[in-house]
């Protein structure tokens, strides 16, 4: 399932010979790449600009408020065009994504000199290197630091006697989180509002479903996909392939329906990242009934994360959020969206807080340490897909130092953060080598 599928015949090929002859080699290449990426705006790299043509240009110029111009003719008509400078393209991408568009970024794959060397009429080789969609972002500039950015795959299993089941898998590739669960159709609304995805993928059939379709179309961005993404027969194999394991049994116990949704999600990610596979945690399964069910109307009404007017300010989350790191803020939002129903788990959390209520010195010291810790999981995700910079490495370095300093205090917080103590000890060994680099 690569990006360059078998390419549909470009529209020109069906034209009479003289009309087809007027298509420039560059435009021929453009149309070919465009046809391979239906439903996406194509950012076509030309020197220092990404150019958009035809309908894409009209959509983008309107959405971004940039000038629509023209370049050459196609079948006797002017070709509408607009462009954004490469070095400021993140900003434009951000605005398009926020409006729910999806973008295919097409780069020049060779030096223009190499193309000239092949002959006069040669066009620079170009390829799509990435699809930018609302649910598959890693860039700091495109992400809200204090919110998770989830891609959600929704699969349905039809039952003859009614009572269809829904499998859900959601992934934040910027933090590697990967969760699956199952629910009934009646619980779908509450589950969707709890997950609050930035992009959802569903089958065409589900998208057009008279009962569930309207619910899905209320989500910020929904992408209907062909059935092969949601093929349950190949789901296990696609998951194994992504995680490079022989069987998923060792990684995670999932129902068949959950696996189907999970496979759809990783296939979509694989496709949007064009071969670069961001590392994901093995799917964590959320058992039914482990969280308090809160439907969308109740969430809105109690102003949990947004006021009725839509502001964060004035919401419960805003009132209780005293965290000092973006990752902490994201975790608090997650917890607020999904209160627990297991009193033992609640008691563990309360114990942790009680410890820090009682010991203000340790609390303040830890908060100072944490304040210096950068957003490690997102830096790591960027480095993994080759989009990281020295700043991300420096972030990891500061994070390791912070972990080191927190581990120094671990006798104070034993039982509260065993993962920190464990991983801290392990990374401490590496710290000496890695941190001296920058």
């Amino acid at each position, binding site marked *: 399932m690569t990006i360059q599928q078998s390419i549909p015949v470009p529209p020109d090929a069906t034209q009479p010979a003289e009309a087809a002859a007027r298509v420039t080699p560059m435009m021929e290449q453009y149309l070919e790449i465009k046809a391979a990426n239906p439903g996406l705006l194509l950012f076509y790299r030309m020197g220092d600009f990404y150019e958009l043509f035809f309908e894409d240009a009209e959509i983008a110029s309107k959405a971004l408020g940039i000038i629509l111009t023209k370049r050459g003719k196609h079948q006797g008509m002017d070709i509408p065009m607009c462009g954004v400078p490469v070095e400021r393209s993140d900003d434009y991408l951000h605005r398009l994504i926020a409006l729910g568009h999806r973008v295919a970024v097409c780069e020049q794959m060779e030096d223009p000199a190499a193309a000239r060397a092949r002959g006069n009429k040669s066009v620079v080789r170009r390829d799509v290197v990435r699809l930018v969609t609302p649910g598959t972002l890693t860039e700091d500039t495109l992400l809200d630091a204090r919110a998770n950015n989830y891609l959600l795959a929704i699969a349905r299993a039809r039952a003859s006697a009614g009572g269809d089941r829904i499998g859900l898998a959601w992934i934040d590739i910027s*933090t*590697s989180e990967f969760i699956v669960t199952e629910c009934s159709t*009646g619980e779908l609304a509450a589950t969707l509002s709890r997950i609050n995805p930035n992009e959802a993928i569903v089958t065409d059939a589900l998208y057009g479903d008279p009962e569930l379709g309207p619910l899905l179309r209320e989500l910020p961005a929904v992408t209907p996909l062909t059935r092969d993404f949601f093929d349950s027969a190949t789901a296990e194999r696609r998951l194994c392939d992504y995680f490079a394991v022989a069987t998923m049994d060792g990684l995670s116990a999932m129902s068949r329906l959950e696996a189907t949704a999970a496979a759809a999600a990783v296939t979509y990610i694989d496709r949007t990242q064009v071969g670069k596979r961001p590392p994901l945690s093995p799917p964590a399964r959320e058992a039914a009934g482990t969280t*308090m*069910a*809160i*439907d969308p*109307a*109740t969430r809105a*009404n*109690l*102003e949990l994360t947004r006021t009725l007017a839509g502001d964060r300010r004035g*919401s*419960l989350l*805003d009132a*209780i*959020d*005293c*965290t*000092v*790191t973006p*990752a*902490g803020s994201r*975790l608090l939002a997650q*917890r607020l969206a999904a*209160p*627990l*129903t*297991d009193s033992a788990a*609640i*008691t563990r*959390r*309360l114990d942790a*807080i*009680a*410890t*820090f*209520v009682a010991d203000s010195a340790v*609390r303040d010291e*830890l*908060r100072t340490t*944490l304040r210096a810790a950068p957003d*490690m*999981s997102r830096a*790591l995700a960027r480095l993994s897909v080759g989009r*990281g910079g020295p700043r991300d*490495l420096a972030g990891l370095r500061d*994070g*390791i130092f*912070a972990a080191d300093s*927190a581990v120094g205090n671990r006798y104070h*917080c034993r039982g*509260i*953060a065993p993962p*920190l103590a*464990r*991983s801290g000890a392990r*990374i401490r060994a590496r710290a000496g080598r*890695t941190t001296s*680099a920058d």
Partner: protein
Amino acid sequence: MREGYEPALDETRNLRDASRLVVAAMQARYAEETGVKGLKIRHNNVLGYFVEVTAQHGDKLMAPPLNATFIHRQTLAGQVRFTTAELGEIEAKIANAGDRALGLELEIFDRLCAMAITASENLRAAAHAFAILDVATALAKLAVDDNYVRPEVDSSLGFAIEGGRHPVVEQALKRDGQPFIANACDLSPGPGQKSGQLWLITGPNMAGKSTFLRQNALIALLAQIGSFVPASRARIGIVDRLFSRVGAADDLARGRSTFMVEMVETAVILNQASERSLVILDEIGRGTATFDGLSIAWAAIEHLHENNRCRTLFATHYHELTALSAKLPRLFNATVRVKEWQGDVVFLHEVLPGSADRSYGIQVAKLAGLPQPVIARAKSVLAKLEAQDRGQTARALADDLPLFAVPSRAAAEPAPRSEAEQLIEAVKALHPDEMSPREALEALYALRAKLPKQ
């Protein structure tokens, strides 16, 4: 990259930087050899490194013996530019060293990235641990700063809050230097009862009913995310589902009327709420004609009490509903305390057992700034209506539903009543659930036009 990390990189960098020194030394030497003090060695992207002198010295360098060393490249208006074989060599070295340094830096960067990715599992675990610690310390700070207590969370059906506060409203009031009036709420099953209680809260608008309702939902929610809660004491039996509804605003975007939205949402609750659920209903039924609304609220309460058996807070302005406490053993009447003072109403924001005797709607309208003549007129209309109501003692009967009953002997009354009656007739003729928002708005204007002019 810091110096001292990678010897190969340091060496290349030294070469690059040393070459620059060589260029500077060369410039000094050339200046001496040629006797041209203003001689400079410069760099641009077209020529690379070159020797530049002012035009007046140009001829000197182009004449023997200096022209053996200096090769003329370019003549500009004020300057003449030359290169030398020596300069060409240095240039190549510098470029190479620069390229090599950059290459090495990239190589090291890639190596470090690979190391980071190898360690990613540990790093991610550390990042997650940080987030957990951050949340725990942040909630602890909140608990200390805003005086929260540790809730007792268990698997009972209990729900007992003492000194409960609304976390958001409290903070807002604090900023204005005002105290928040804390209130208790106990929905735990009473002695000998198996299910939780249903509190029916009456009282005027603006007195804090909605705040009270929401604060209890939020305290339960905070307790179950494992946070301390804004109360002096709280015991919460795990809530499996939380429902909160308010007589809704018009949902114009989806073309549903207020009342339709309300009923759809109420239906969800009546169908789904279990004994473990917590249900908050605020002014349900106000979106339709008075009798319809009252009947629906009445039936909904009975259903919640008998079938769902969930812990419920139900705020209403239908005082008639308080009569249900005679019939439903787990229904408890509570009211928000107000004081009347010189004809105005003072809100005390205290929730107490009992029921409000009246809604103080006119006093609230006065606070809202309705014109004095309208207030006066409304008072006289109300007085008439209440005078007729007094004769009926039906309120005591749980299965009777007296409400602003329209008297049958209306004809005998003077003009004011007949105007009121016309209005009532007009209102009764409306069917909000069959109206589009636009029709509803037009009907509202028509009603206003019928108001007596003063």
